[in-house]
């Protein structure tokens, strides 16, 4: 099942701990009603260790969202193997938090109810008001619990979306371009916040982004994907100590080299956007 290219890929680090998420030869073909087929993913091999922060960058349409949806159990994995915590993924597991592009809040629920949603569906009946308060406080939304999504700015909505993904305290956080709609400054602030959350919680994070600087700033490892059909082109370790800040990271020698390499890989694949 493994594609021949897998051997020539330069692995950044051999995984010491057993992988929490393991993809091997994962492929996906969408077949339209008229029979025409789109090969979205083609032999993706990727291992993510517990507590690791991995960013994925790749040209538009290369199958990043498809990959994330399969890890989340929203789309079935029909080719290759996709293992999560030692078990093949067969559907959404309660232990994975997903942060969607464009907050995806329910407009008829207020902020607190949106964040509480994961605690009251899927066979859960937990009240846990203290936990919700703590999450909202951490995201700087303490006073906004009773507000409705339309009363919040885009950045605040996105923070609510992140709080919601954290409500069940999942081991794994999957994020699909969560900050794409935000202005540069808000985005950097959210990145710093996400880094802090990740450092204090020890979660495993898989982040899809179009921003090279965001990918490097947050990740232990940046995964660069090829143009469609998507494969893993290269994995690059980010040897920059934490906590990182946007002010100092740009002057780190590894940063410029990494950014340059990622940019080179992507432009060879036809650009990032």
């Amino acid at each position, binding site marked *: 099942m493994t594609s021949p290219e897998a051997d020539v890929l330069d692995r950044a680090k051999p995984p010491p701990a057993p992988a929490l998420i393991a993809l091997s030869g994962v492929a996906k073909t969408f077949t339209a009603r008229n029979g025409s087929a789109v090969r979205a993913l083609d032999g993706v091999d990727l291992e993510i260790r517990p507590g690791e922060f991995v960013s994925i960058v790749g040209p538009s349409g290369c199958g990043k969202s498809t990959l994330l*949806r399969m890890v*989340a*159990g*929203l789309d079935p994995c029909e080719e290759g193997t996709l293992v999560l915590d030692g078990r093949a993924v067969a*559907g*959404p*597991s*309660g232990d*994975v938090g*997903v942060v*969607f592009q*464009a*907050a*995806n*809040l*329910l*407009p*008829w629920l207020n902020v607190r109810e949106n964040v509480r*949603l*994961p605690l009251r*569906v*899927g*066979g859960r009946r937990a009240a846990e008001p203290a936990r919700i308060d703590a999450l909202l406080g951490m995201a700087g939304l303490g006073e906004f619990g009773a507000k*409705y*999504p*339309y009363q919040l700015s*885009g950045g605040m*909505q996105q923070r609510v979306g992140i709080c919601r993904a954290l409500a*069940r305290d999942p081991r794994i956080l999957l994020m699909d371009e969560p900050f794409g709609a935000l202005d540069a400054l808000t985005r950097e602030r959210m990145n710093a916040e996400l880094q802090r959350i990740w450092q204090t919680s020890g979660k495993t994070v898989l982040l899809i982004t179009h921003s090279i600087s965001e990918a490097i700033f947050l990740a232990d490892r940046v995964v660069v994907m090829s143009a469609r059909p998507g494969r893993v082109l290269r994995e690059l370790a980010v040897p920059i100590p934490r906590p990182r800040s946007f002010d100092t990271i740009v002057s780190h020698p590894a940063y410029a080299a990494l950014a340059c390499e990622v940019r080179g890989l992507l432009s060879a694949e036809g650009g990032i956007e």
Partner: protein
Amino acid sequence: MSGASMQQGASAATLAATPARRRRRFAEVRGSLIAAGGMLVLLALWEGSVRFLHTPSYILPTPGSVVHALWSGLAVSPASPVGYYRPLWGTFHNAALGFVLGSLLGLVLGSLMAESRVIEKLLMPYAFALQCLPKIAIAPLVVIWFGFGDGSKIAIAAMLTFFSLLINSFTGLRATEPERIDLMRSLSASRFEIYRIVKLPNAASFIFAGLDMAVVYALLGTIVAEFLGAQNGMGVVITQAQSVNDVAGVFAALVILGALGIALHALMHRLERRVVHWADRGTN
């Protein structure tokens, strides 16, 4: 003035005196004055043309005689067998019962059709065929089945309401954004949880649009059933007035029905504002 801005106005009385608000109030008052003025002119033209053209009163009564008929129908004890109160209550009662029954049935079946492809495939052909049929034409058949009592009125009102709700709830439930369903699936929510927490609120505006139409349909159905034969109801008031060429009486009954329709419509609108409070404020 919208219900939502009224709610906000109540909580923020300090805002009431801002120039923008005052201007808006002024515009509203002026708008009402224009409408009232136009109506007075229309009534005057009506009265004048009937008098000067000597239109016979069994063709077009004067506004004055309509007001007189209205007054004689309203200035009686609510319990009296003559006057509007008893027939009005009868019509309202049957229309309301039919409305509630039809809405519930329409919502339940619309939901089942939206949730299950099998039920959709099974029922959609009939729903579509009946949708294209002028359903009021079934009324005589319903009278044969349910008789001349309240049953046929309720049944016809329910039938018309049912179709309006069936189509609208089905469409609204199917229009749910897939991202929202993905969210619920990622939380391993049950099908019923997805329905209750996402799809139903998502369809609320569609459902209210259906209810809004259905209010008028329920009244329409009840009146038509009363035309076909009844002991009590505004339809009976109209046919009785018609049988003695009391055109002013017919007009007066129509005014009463119009007022009832407007009141129910306004009630539904307020209810919608309250329930679907997040709508029209832009989604995220």
